[in-house]
């Protein structure tokens, strides 16, 4: 056989998996549909929780930049809160402008989540144990986490148990009274999710985030040169370890021991690893007769309906955000969504197939002339019209809304690029346009991601593996699904199972 492993998709997780597998001596080929590597990673604008361990393991030549401000939260009355990275004191001073009580709670909030995050962190880089037949190693891993859980003490243990299923709106109001602060923190519980802050289970997002980088408030770290520099570094690491990467090579079919390109060209390999989302992998690339009907029906019920659109603006000058005196404050994420009710209303629209008139916006300005906007909610399926006919209306609405916070923005705009959930599906191959390859709710989480019984990166087909965000620990630019999958695949090779 020509290759040991063929990886479908050169997204960041596919590249991470390729690099690890090539390093372990397997002859690895990556097939990427588009002309560039990186996949959906370029849609994100903060690399935040990219795993340090992976960066070290793969000796990535990248430089992380941690801006002074993690997030700048704007309100439409011109007041704002800057939440600093690792500078609790400055943040407390910002919060004091609104509430002395909240300023007092903030340090404890930060510490509590950091503490709980440290306990959860090892879960991220482990393979979720199988509920049916937990392997010895899994039990050992889980035991370690259990022990760490015990060490948290009764109060934090119960916090963790309570918070998991709770609505994030409730969680934040237990800590803070300022609406702007509540909404800014709560937003991370719903980012990319078909959920509002009042939806139960949205606190999970904050806990998970804390596990990834110790903070509940979301990432802001970026890579020097942008996400492209990260994916390029990953591709370099993979190729220098011996992996081969082919772009412009769209896989249209997976068959027993080989994958087939659109051109009809087949590639033989002992194992096939899909970086595509679970629905694309099983429902598009495979012939359904290969799969058990029961598995298929569960997979069809895997929820992956996207709600985020991306808008990229190029600007002729730095916009003037109301109430923001210091441009340095624009270095992290900019959050628009000043109240819990505002976020909830934004969500309400999407339940009925409409996009939010007043959307929740998560913005990053990698340079003074570039603005990258995540606009939520933009449901994949619109009730009236479709994304082709309503694209401009959507973008105009977002820009008009943004003008309330940055008057004069419109006049600075040179170009507008709109990436709707439809485009996410068509251009980036994200089924349902879901940026996380599927909702990250309790029932599609950890040992249930993507499906109960299939959370170990293996699939019902012996030679087929998954390594994308549709596997544990899910979406975001962490690289962990790729690394975890590579570990399992290498293990199977070693054991002679493939």
């Amino acid at each position, binding site marked *: 056989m020509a290759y040991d492993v063929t990886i479908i998709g050169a997204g960041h997780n596919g590249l991470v998996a390729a690099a690890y597998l090539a390093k372990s001596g397997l002859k690895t080929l990556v097939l990427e549909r588009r002309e560039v590597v990186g996949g959906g990673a370029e849609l994100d604008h903060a690399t935040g929780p990219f795993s340090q361990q992976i960066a070290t393991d793969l000796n990535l030549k990248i430089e992380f930049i941690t801006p002074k401000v993690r997030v700048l939260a704007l309100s439409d009355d011109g007041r704002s809160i800057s939440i600093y990275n690792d500078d609790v004191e400055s943040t407390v001073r910002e919060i004091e402008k609104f509430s002395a009580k909240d300023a007092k709670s903030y340090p404890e909030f930060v510490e509590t989540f950091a503490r709980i995050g440290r306990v959860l962190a090892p879960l991220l880089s482990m393979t979720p144990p199988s*509920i*049916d037949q937990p392997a010895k190693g899994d039990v050992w891993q889980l035991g370690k986490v259990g022990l760490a859980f*015990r060490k948290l003490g*009764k*109060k934090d*243990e*119960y916090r963790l*148990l*309570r*918070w*998991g*299923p*709770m*609505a994030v709106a*409730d969680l934040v109001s*237990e800590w803070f009274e300022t609406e702007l602060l509540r909404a800014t923190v709560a937003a991370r519980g719903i980012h990319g999710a078909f*959920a509002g802050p*009042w*939806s*139960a*289970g949205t606190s999970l997002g904050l806990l998970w985030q804390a596990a990834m980088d110790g903070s509940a408030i979301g990432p802001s770290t970026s890579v020097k040169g942008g996400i492209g520099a990260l994916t390029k570094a990953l591709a370099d690491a993979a190729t220098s370890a011996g992996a081969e990467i082919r772009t412009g090579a769209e896989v249209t079919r997976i068959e027993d021991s080989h994958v087939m390109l659109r051109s009809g060209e087949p590639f033989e390999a002992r194992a096939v690893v899909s970086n595509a989302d679970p629905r694309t992998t099983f429902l598009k690339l495979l012939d359904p007769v290969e799969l058990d009907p*029961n598995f298929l029906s*569960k997979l069809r*019920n895997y*929820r992956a309906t996207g709600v985020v659109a991306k808008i990229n603006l190029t600007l002729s000058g730095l916009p003037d955000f109301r109430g923001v005196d210091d441009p340095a404050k624009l270095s992290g994420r900019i959050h628009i969504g000043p109240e819990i*009710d505002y976020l*909830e209303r934004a969500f*309400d629209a999407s*339940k*009925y197939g409409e996009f939010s008139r007043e959307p929740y916006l998560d913005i990053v300005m990698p340079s003074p002339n570039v603005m990258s906007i995540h606009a939520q909610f933009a449901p994949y399926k619109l009730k009236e019209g479709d994304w082709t006919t309503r694209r401009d209306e959507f973008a105009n609405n977002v820009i008009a809304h943004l003008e309330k916070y940055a008057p004069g923005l419109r006049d600075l705009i040179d170009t507008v690029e709109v990436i709707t959930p439809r485009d996410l599906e068509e251009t980036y191959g994200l089924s349902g346009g879901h940026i996380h390859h599927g909702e990250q*709710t*309790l*029932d599609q989480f950890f040992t*249930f991601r993507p*499906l*109960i*019984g299939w959370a170990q990166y293996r699939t019902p087909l012996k030679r087929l593996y998954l390594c994308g965000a549709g596997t544990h620990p899910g979406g975001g630019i962490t690289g962990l699904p790729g690394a975890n999958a590579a570990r399992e695949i290498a293990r199977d090779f070693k054991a002679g199972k493939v």
Partner: protein
Amino acid sequence: MNSKYDVVVIGGGHNGLVNAAYLARAGKKVLVLERRHVLGGAAVTEEVFPGFKFSVCSYVVSLLRPEIIRELDLPRHGLEILPLDGTFTPMPNGDYLWRVNDHARTRREIARHSRLDAEAYDEYGKAMIEMAHFVKPIMSMTPPDPTTLDPKGWKNLAFLGRRFQKLSDDDKYNQVQLMTMSAVDFLDQWFETDVLKATMSASGIIGTFLGVRSPGTAYVLLHHYMGEIDGAFRSWGFARGGTGAISNAIADAAREAGVEIRIDAPIEKILLKNGRATGVVLKNGDEIHAGVVSSSVDPRLTFMKMIGEEHLPDDFCTDLKRYKYRGSSGKVNLALDGLPDFKSLPGPGAHLRGAISISPSVEYMERAYDEAKYGRFSRRPYIDMVIPSLTDPSVAPPGKHVMSCFVQYAPYNLKEGNWDEKREEFGDTVVDTIAEHAPNIRNLIRDRQVVTPLDLEREFGLSEGNIFQGELTLEQLFFLRPAPGWAQYRTPIKNLYMCGSATHPGGGIMGAPGRNAALQMLKDI
């Protein structure tokens, strides 16, 4: 008065009475104190208008534990459950969905809407019964404390783990989904008929401040199948004489076991001595001493009103303040001159003998919720109606009827105005909504009683009008109900126990909290 009891039970609702009965049967000297002039708490029948008897709050029997019926021999004490057959959902397009207990008929009815759904209905029923089997023993167990370092405490956790382990793969999958998903998401996997999903999912939101699309609402779908596995007709029924008859039967069983019951006996506070509960003081100044105090009222009343924060640990107070009530429902009780005539299925018929559900679509249900989120009652609410006088003529004068309408959403906290000002407007909204489906209703109404969430709080002692003594959301269930670390019916005050719906397994006319608490108390005392 200064007599000494082993246990004094605060509140003569169904849980307080069950609790008292079990304690007395074990030989304890028990006194039950009820604030109102009538027993039953929210499980009560009152003659609101002359000749018209209403189950003022709770209106159907759903989950009364069969072991309680058996052990307390309730039928001998006058309990008679009459079947409530089916759910009729009128639709605005002139059609309807009418599910009955006869599976084959329901299947045919569903097939009228969708053949696929009719097939799925069989599968669904089977799966749900499996799930109900899994959940059932959890109902009658004292929740474990997962943070305990005592290996004995892990026994129950290990028991649950092993049971879960033994489920088939499909059942595990279903169980996880049921515990975490929204009712609509869960049902979407089985069915395509909108009105079917809307009506089924309604049971997931009753009494909670959640919408049918809110995660965590799927679990309640199971409750409908609990009755089935107990060998009863599904789970829904009326008590002859109204819901109060259940309370009266339990009270009768309690008295027979030696329980003393006093009505019109409101409590001022719980007596404490050296951090232990030693009895209660009534509003009239009487002191009643007892070895143990068992409170069936909610934690806010028990701890904040009857004890006071100063006697409680700070963390416990914080947890109690975080415990969510957020009443979301109201009740409209109508005295009628005749029967409503539904446009979609005119004339009197068996469809009026079951539940009548105003839940025409998932979107309708969700929009009703959206309004409540922002502090308004739903302009077009979800309504669950029953006409018990059709099955039990004793509750209304001959030829007349009583109709009980459970209405959601009616948020306790209104953004504008207050419930006393909004009462009639709310009542009108309900009548208008019904009239869209049964226009003759307007001419039939003789009298109307509107029970707002504020009334539930003031009259029935349910904080913020929550009919379950606190939201039934995952973070307030099982070992977290009512507060982390205090789910074993004990409290930080020695000799004070909780036995109401605010403890595991929660609200509804189940009686399980009262029974579980009694068993725990008997173990401890």
